[in-house]
């Protein structure tokens, strides 16, 4: 934390490079992260200004919270401090888009929704559909790394990001990767930033692989008496020659939020096929054949199918971050999703459970029972037993003793060594990431 007089000096310096606002108790409220209330808001309008601003903060020993759309700021442990919010809203331009090359370069503050609109004008899309709010930005998405149903077919951000430019606390602007789809020119530093919660640098520009929009899409629904039975069907489809673009598992409450009537205690398997019509039709036939044991199954009419997917994305986004909710993401070996689903469906008070066949399972309850610590520990224990991990994404304020990340998937000492290299003064999001990094 920076002393008042030093903060004033920092405010003046920042004003020289970017639009800077002093925040008081009232104006800081929307920028407050788990109790950490920032005092300055800085909105650089160029990559260079962002670099200069971050360097000034680092020199002053200030704590910086990078901010995209702010829709996922509840993720992670409470920050150790918050002096400056560095917001990328003035860095939202489309830098380069070559439809024939299937790549697009955008500034980090561009909203995903806006990018999809721009790509849509040329019959393309970013094949990436995480459950996030309309305000979510590309930079914020890289930092938090959520995935949506399309992860199944085309991978996640680690598979789509081919280049980045990052402002470093040392005051440099560093490029990684490039605008080509295949690249082994030194370390793939891009990977370091994805899912790192902004702890290693401030993303200012991102280059992504884009794809043609599918010619046709269709949606199929199967109802099963257990998550395990539904997952077995999903597994059979995944091991076959089929290439579904989504396979999602929902408990009855989650299905209801999508506008689907599923009896209590039952599970819905929602599948989507995309591409050329004859291939899509074949998928539907094969889904149906694989689901002999389903209680009920049907192909949804096109408009209903689209409506279901769009409802799914928006309620899942809202649900993940709703205040007063406990939401966990389980990262599981794919085949264990059903087992996990059946086990967690009864935990807590009427949880909403939804999962992707790639192994990401979400579990959410409105929690006013102060049970968040105990429930999340139980979920973490289960995930660990199944060979995965549990991340507590959201929890009611005031929950005691909660470690949002749990054990790291890579050795902590190596992560600390990287943090020391990239952010030696602990300027960026200190304390929020895995292991208190």
């Amino acid at each position: 934390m920076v002393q008042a007089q030093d903060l004033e000096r920092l405010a003046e310096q920042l004003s020289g490079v970017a639009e800077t606002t002093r925040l008081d108790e009232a104006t800081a409220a929307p920028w407050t992260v788990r109790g950490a209330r920032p005092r300055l808001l800085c909105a650089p309008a160029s990559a260079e200004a962002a670099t200069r601003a971050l360097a000034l903060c680092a020199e002053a020993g200030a704590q910086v919270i990078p901010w995209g759309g702010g829709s996922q700021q509840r993720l992670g442990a409470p920050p150790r401090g918050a002096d400056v919010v560095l917001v990328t809203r003035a860095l939202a331009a489309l830098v380069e888009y070559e439809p024939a090359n299937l790549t697009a370069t955008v500034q980090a503050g561009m909203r995903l929704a806006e990018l999809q609109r721009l790509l849509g004008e040329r019959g393309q899309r970013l094949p990436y559909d995480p459950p996030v709010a309309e305000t979510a930005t590309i930079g914020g998405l890289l930092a938090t790394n959520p995935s949506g149903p399309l992860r199944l077919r085309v991978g996640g951000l680690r598979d789509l990001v081919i280049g980045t430019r990052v402002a470093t606390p040392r005051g440099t602007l560093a490029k990684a990767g490039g605008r080509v789809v295949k690249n082994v020119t030194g370390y793939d530093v891009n990977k370091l930033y994805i899912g790192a919660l902004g702890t290693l640098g401030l993303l200012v520009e991102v280059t992504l692989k884009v794809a043609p929009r599918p010619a046709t899409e269709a949606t199929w629904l199967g109802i099963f008496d257990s998550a395990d039975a539904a997952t077995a069907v999903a597994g059979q489809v995944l091991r076959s020659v089929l290439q579904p673009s989504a396979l999602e598992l929902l408990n009855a409450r989650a299905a209801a939020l999508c506008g689907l009537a599923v009896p209590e205690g039952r599970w819905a398997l929602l599948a989507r096929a995309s591409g050329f019509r004859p291939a899509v039709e074949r998928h539907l036939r094969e889904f149906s054949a694989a689901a002999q044991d389903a209680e009920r199954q049907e192909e949804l009419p096109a408009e209903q199918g689209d409506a279901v997917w769009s409802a799914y994305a928006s309620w899942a986004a809202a649900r993940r971050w709703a205040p007063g909710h406990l939401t966990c993401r389980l990262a599981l070996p794919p085949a264990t999703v059903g087992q996990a689903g059946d086990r967690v469906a009864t935990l807590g008070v009427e949880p909403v459970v939804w999962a992707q066949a790639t192994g990401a399972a979400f579990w959410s309850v409105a929690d006013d029972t102060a049970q968040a610590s105990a429930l999340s520990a139980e979920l973490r224990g289960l995930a660990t037993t199944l060979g995965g991990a549990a991340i507590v994404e959201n929890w009611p304020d005031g929950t005691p003793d909660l470690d949002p990340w749990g054990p790291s998937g890579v050795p902590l000492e190596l992560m600390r060594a990287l943090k020391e290299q990239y952010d030696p003064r602990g300027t960026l999001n200190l304390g929020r990431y895995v292991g208190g990094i």
Partner: protein
Amino acid sequence: MQPGPFVRELIDLVGERNVLWRDYDLLLYEYDGSVDKARPQAVVTPETTEQVAAVMRACDRAQVPVTARGGGTGLSGGALPVEGGVLLALVKMDRLLDVDLDNLRAVVEPGLVNLQLSQAIANHQLYFVPDPSSQKACTIGGNVGENAGGPHTLLYGVTTNHVLGLEVVTPRGEVVQFGGKALDLPGYDLTGVFVGSEGTIGVATKVVVRLVPMAEAVRTLLAVFATIEEASAAVSDIIGHGIVPAAMEIMDQLAIKAVEAAYHAGYPEDAGAVLLVEVDGLREGLDEQASDIEAIAYRQGARSVRLAANAKERELLWAGRKGAFGAMGRLSPDYYVVDGVVPRSTLPKVLAEVGEVGRRYDLAIANVFHAGDGNLHPLVLFDADKPGELERVKEAGAELMRICLRHGGTLSGEHGIGVEKRHLMSEAFDECDLEQMMRVKKALDPDGRCNPGKIFPTPGQCAEIIPHPVHGLGW
């Protein structure tokens, strides 16, 4: 001749049969698939992770460099021990440890040969996607080191997209885990950073890979063009039409000539270029895609378009492509493979400039490349016995790299930087970019133990690589 004290220590750790130290044994390990050479002081062939860790600890104590080697097929000198020390040849660690059909994952040791993995799971109708031309000899560990690609990675991705977890021995000899069978575990994506790090931050001893079901059906087309520019325009046009084939490969006239002499793959020898396109997936819709591609090819000036009628014809078309590098021997005693990558929309311009370099240097250049992802492989033909010729070839190679950079591309799509291109890194990246990259090395291999002399530019680097004997050890 008796082994020195350090070699005796290595022998104590891994046994006599796993240490080579006599000059004539070391000779076999002084080269890989690149044009340079460097000799280690000892070669160790560990059989277990524990042995790798023990050797790393011994090397760390003695401050000896360690260079990992898989099949030795790398084209950028990644497996050359340019500063001497221990060469860790991982060929004996070649087991397929776990085939997990439910999760579509396999766990393999690094010395397993790429094609052997795919063959071992073929009865389940599964395969490992990356298919470098050297797949009969290259190892999964080497694929991880170089982030290997191959013709069929256009639609399905390269090695980094198919590796989800690693067991790694750190430069200090600790055994650590990165990632696993589940996606997006908490923490930095060190698996993603490790893939393509050319053995410079540790040694992978287990690799968790993704297994992918084989496509049900496939259509392979050969389009014949008068010029390479037309063929590359067809590539852009196909992608522009929303079709992303499984593979799109181009060969120019010189390459066709070599391939025909060696394989009789049925490429017309008078053509300026051939474009090999493959689409796969479900039977349904595949013929429509193939006829769309055919129409586009004709629109871009194709002289003829042929669809492989059966598996045998398809294999023959691919044999020509996969054997193209080797076939160069029909035309020239030596060839130098250049690996560069450009945004695919710039291909016609870039290829014209490649031809220009060949004329200027009076060197024959054949082009065989992954056109779909803009990954060029100019093959510069030469005779190494002619004095000064290799230097001229390397200069021409550097010029080809600069063409790629000028057109928004970069230095390597799949072969890596190794020793070969490190002097060009400062042309692809500025100092800040390189510093940011080097911080990975500083964090994970602070003493520079793993594969020193790779990737990063060294000031005043000379063209010839002389191994530095590691003094004071008594090898």
